[in-house]
């Protein structure tokens, strides 16, 4: 007796997305690359965490990264905004290009402003809701103080949080629920107008209703921002992604358009994983 989803269920699910969000626009065959990763290897000290990655992450699309725990998908995400540099004894070889330029040409602070990141656990700063959103604008000097109020409202509206918090902007961000806190973190990341939003399992600490709201939000943002989302939840990847990358033991096994990958995976390992035979 197995409760794992069959490949057939996933196909249905991917179609169910069309029913929920309306018919998706046709995915163009050759989108521009936001990130171009070539022969990339990643090491934690002596541990070889990522092996010879070669892929292009498309611009203005939602890319889901799936794979079992410890497969390197979060590590990969952290190479894209050089967040790995905060961990001692880490090393990258090969090249990652962001747009046309090498990632290492950017200063880390400028890069991280353009490549925003939201983490697994909601991590609002112990400040008011308003100050949380304004934080990125203030430290980067992106906004005159008289425009700040409008800008904060705009970000909260974009993250579909405005109606829930407009009467308590100056209360602590901790007064929000977990799902609201996570949407606040997304709004906070959007405030500095990043080109890319990296989401590292943003829903794993949330209940299904809060998860659905985040997914709606990702869907709303999908054409204004490149979104790369790491998820443990294959069903989630099927629901929201345009493209999917499957990682296993530090290697990229398959990368393809989501509808193709979930219906006709070209690799046996991918098929085994998405049909729940392991992982």
């Amino acid at each position: 007796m197995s409760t794992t989803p069959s490949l057939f269920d996933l196909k249905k699910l991917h179609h169910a997305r069309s029913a929920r969000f309306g018919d998706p626009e046709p995915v163009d065959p050759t989108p521009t690359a936001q990130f171009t990763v070539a022969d990339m290897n990643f090491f934690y000290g002596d541990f070889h965490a990522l092996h010879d990655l070669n892929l292009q992450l498309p611009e203005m699309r939602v890319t889901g990264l799936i794979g079992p725990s410890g497969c390197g998908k979060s590590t990969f995400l952290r190479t894209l905004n050089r967040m790995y540099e905060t961990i001692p004894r880490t090393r990258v070889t090969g090249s990652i290009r962001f747009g046309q330029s090498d990632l290492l040409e950017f200063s880390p602070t400028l890069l991280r402003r353009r490549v925003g990141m939201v983490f697994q656990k909601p991590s609002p700063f112990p400040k008011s809701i308003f100050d949380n959103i304004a934080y990125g604008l203030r430290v980067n000097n992106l906004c005159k103080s008289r425009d700040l109020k409008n800008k904060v409202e705009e970000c909260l509206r974009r993250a579909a949080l405005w109606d829930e918090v407009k009467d308590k902007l100056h209360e602590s961000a901790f007064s929000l629920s977990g799902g609201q806190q996570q949407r606040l973190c997304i709004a906070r990341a959007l405030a500095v107008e990043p080109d890319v939003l990296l989401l590292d399992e943003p829903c794993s600490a949330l209940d299904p209703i809060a998860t659905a709201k985040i997914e709606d939000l990702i869907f709303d943002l999908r054409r204004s921002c490149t979104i790369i989302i790491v998820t443990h939840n294959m069903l989630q990847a099927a629901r929201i992604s345009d493209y999917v990358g499957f990682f296993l033991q530090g290697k990229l096994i398959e990368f393809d358009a989501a509808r193709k990958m979930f219906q006709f995976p070209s690799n046996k390992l991918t098929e085994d994983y998405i049909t729940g035979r392991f992982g």
Partner: protein
Amino acid sequence: MSDSRRSKQKSYPPTYKKVINVFMLSLTGIAALLVVSVLLFILGYLIWNGARSLNLNFFTKLPVPVGEQGGGMANAIVGSGKLLLLASMIGIPIGLLGGVYLAEFGKGPFSLAVRYTADLLNGVPSIVIGIFVYGLIVLPQHHFSTFAGGVALGIMMIPIALRSTDEFLRAVPNTLREGGLALGASKAQTVVTVIIPAAMQGIVTGIMLNLARVAGETAPLLFTAFGNQFWSSGWSGPTASLPVMIFNYAISPYEDWHRQAWAAGFVLLTGIFLTNIAARLLVSGGRARAGH
């Protein structure tokens, strides 16, 4: 479902369980009561013995010679205040900045060594710190001074301020550090605008408790600030302080000086007590605001 299994477990008669419960509960209750009663006993004893000498004069007048009525310890109260001010100016900045370095920037063997050294310094008997400052400042200058006393207390404050700042900063979850960096803030900006504010309540509490602790130190003052029956102006002369005043008055053979020592003890304890309460309120108030 498991009647058979339950019957296999060793069972005690209910009265036995009740007796054990009442007995153990009483023991823990008595122990808790003892802890509180020691403090209440000290406080009561101080009031009982010192309250008669505690009047407005105590806070406004200088000490008077033996046999004269009245007199107070105004100079000792001000002296203690001056010593604590100087100690804070030395101990707090060094401890605070060092703690920020240890928690946020220091990595590897050096910061381990600093932490360990701070813990050792914290364990150095206060009289040894007194002798050290005596050799360092008093002997070369050929006189006792408020400055030397402040330095001695300041040295005592450093390790506690350092370690409490370090601990409270390290208790800030790493997600906040990453959250700041992910928005394009530099490491230093993140520390100053997110991490330190997040730990602020704890850091301030640590410093207030630290102040309360050194306020009662006597040994390091005996041969640095020494003592004084009169006002001490400036920082270069010896000054009276409450703990040393208590010491000198308590070992004297005069009954009314003993009463004044009790009163000084009461004032000192009340000051420490109020500082402690203020620190706790500050922390709980901060928690309530942050919504924990």
